[in-house]
């Protein structure tokens, strides 16, 4: 009985001890190290960093290990740590045009300045189980190109040259970017806050919503203008110094989705954009994010709001997996007080129903003392 009177404390301690045992598993096997998780389960680490909004591979790997590989649990652990950290400043916008590129593909141009770079992708692999990975077979070194220091033009800039795509847009001079970790969300959101929420939103949820737009629930006729993965410098403005100082590089995945737009009374026919930016290597998430971002801009473009993916309050209120899992799983907590109240009501209504229908019924609740 999980509410055993006076036993709660010991039961919880014992449960946690058992959890630690199961986490460690068979003691005759070596424990998996944080370095190994960082190096060999890198995409799991990336997802945890992205959805926890904290760029720290070691801590994310620790969370993955502590959570026994449960991603949402790991995200939760890392977020709960992140929230205790002071915010000491705001970075200047990262310049993804000067990204050190590891992968960059465009679906809209056969070739383009900088070229198409496949990078470390699952694309075009045949998903056949690989027996060589059952053992620790040596892995050949990859080919390397000589580093190209020049920045790689973004596809949106190519189209912008012709005036066929909406620009980056301008925020007012005095606009301070919102921070959803410091202010409660108030709908409707500005786009910076909406993108923040999407960037930490659940990959699976955004994937499903993005998919729904492709299947006709608010179709946006998308093309992958570009997906790029690589390292960008994060710089912080130091007011005392009067210039920005580099804090170091972070790996990000950026997706620019190019979408058709027929034009409206306010805007000429042109391509519009959906944007995705995610910590680490997470193409699926960045692409899904950019599709959902575009769908959520429906009102901006005067489009009819007809599908879930266009509904900001619906999407953003339910995209956070830490919130969602907490509330769904809280149903395991005892609810017997409320259940008692409902039981009482149902019994009363049932008795009334039976009386109306002339059903003879013996009371199933006998006094325990009988």
């Amino acid at each position, binding site marked *: 009985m999980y509410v055993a009177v006076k036993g709660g404390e010991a039961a919880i301690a014992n449960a946690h001890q058992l959890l630690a045992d199961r986490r460690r598993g068979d003691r005759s096997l070596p424990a998996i190290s944080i370095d190994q998780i960082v190096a060999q389960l890198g995409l799991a680490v990336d997802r945890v960093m992205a959805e926890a909004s904290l760029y720290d591979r070691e801590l994310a790997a620790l969370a993955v290990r502590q959570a026994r590989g449960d991603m949402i649990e790991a995200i939760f652990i890392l977020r*709960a740590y992140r929230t205790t950290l002071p915010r000491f400043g705001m970075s200047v916008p990262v310049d993804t045009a000067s990204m050190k590129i590891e992968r960059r593909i465009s679906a809209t141009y056969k070739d383009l300045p900088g070229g198409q770079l496949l990078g470390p992708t699952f694309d075009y692999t045949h998903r056949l189980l690989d027996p060589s990975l059952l053992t620790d077979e040596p892995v050949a070194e990859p080919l390397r190109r000589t580093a190209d220091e020049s920045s790689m033009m973004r596809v949106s800039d190519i189209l912008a040259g012709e005036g066929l795509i909406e620009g980056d847009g301008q925020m007012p001079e005095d606009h301070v970017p919102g921070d959803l970790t410091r202010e409660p969300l108030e709908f409707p959101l500005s786009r910076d806050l909406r993108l923040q929420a999407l960037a930490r939103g659940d990959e699976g949820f955004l994937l499903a919503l993005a998919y729904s737009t492709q299947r006709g629930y608010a179709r946006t006729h998308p093309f992958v203008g570009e997906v790029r993965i690589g390292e960008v410098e994060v710089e912080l403005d130091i007011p005392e110094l009067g210039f920005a100082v580099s804090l170091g590089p972070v790996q990000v995945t950026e997706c620019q989705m190019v979408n058709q737009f027929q034009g409206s009374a306010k805007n000429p026919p042109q391509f519009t954009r959906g944007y995705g930016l995610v910590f680490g290597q997470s193409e699926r998430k960045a692409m899904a994010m950019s599709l959902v971002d575009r769908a959520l801009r429906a009102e901006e473009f005067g489009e009819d709001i007809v599908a879930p993916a266009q509904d900001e309050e619906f999407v953003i209120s339910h995209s956070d997996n830490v*919130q969602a899992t907490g509330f769904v799983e809280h149903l395991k907590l005892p609810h017997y007080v409320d259940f008692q*109240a409902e039981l009482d009501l149902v019994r009363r*209504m049932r008795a009334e129903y039976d009386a109306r229908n002339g059903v003879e019924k013996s009371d199933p609740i006998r006094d325990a003392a009988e």
Partner: protein
Amino acid sequence: MTDLATYNFAYLDEQTKRMIRRAILKAISIPGYQVPFASREMPMPYGWGTGGVQVTAAILGPKDVLKVIDQGADDTTNAVSIRAFFQKVANVAVTTKTRDATIIQTRHRIPEETLTAGQTLVYQVPIPEPLRFLEPRETETRKMHALEEYGLMHVKLYEDIARNGHIATTYAYPVKVEGRYVMDPSPTPKFDNPKMHMSEALQLFGAGREKRIYAVPPHTDVVSLDFEDHPFEIQHFDKPCALCGAEHVYLDEVVLDDKGGRMFVCSDTDHCEDRREHGHAGHLLAQQEAAE
């Protein structure tokens, strides 16, 4: 990485506490109004009392005596866990005695013993918006509160009566606070609603996931919604508590066997123990003693 676990008194940093205290002060100033606040991720899951925990963490001082209950009981697992959390991060004195506590954090119940001046009751709230199940959009419900447009709620209660002959809401029964805001009392059984009215204690409500704080200051009107010809009623139990013989208290039904055997005992464990210490005995306890 070694100095990860250096947390402030009561876990939250002082800036966060200040932000929460401001929200609390605003909530006290506008009884029943839901104040948005920048809820933090807590080290327990959303939906498990993070709102209540943040409110408690923001008002807790080293001299406070804390009581935590869930379903009226001090020893339910989540109450144990939250109490242990505050012992760990704030090292405060804890108690199970209602009258000894300065702060009582609760989920789903209000203690049977009347609270007194100087005590604060902190409610854990899952869905702070009483209109949420009538209108899912926050943008709409905020407007409805602003315009004091509560017709929808009355229609819902009326439809209950038309369909069932009585109001079919048994917990989280909506109240009107100080004649202005309709408020969700959290999923306490409606049995507890009258205790909120003109209470001497300060009542604070925290909803972490939904990022809202609201309050009922001491000596405030709290009226359960009803109709003249269908006045508000609380639940009544046919039998007294099987252990302490208390009447007019909220009882839990405990299943004794697979033959329909049930007993009804106080949901408020402290109240029940206190009565038994003072020599009260219900029929089950009396039987046991007779058998020994």
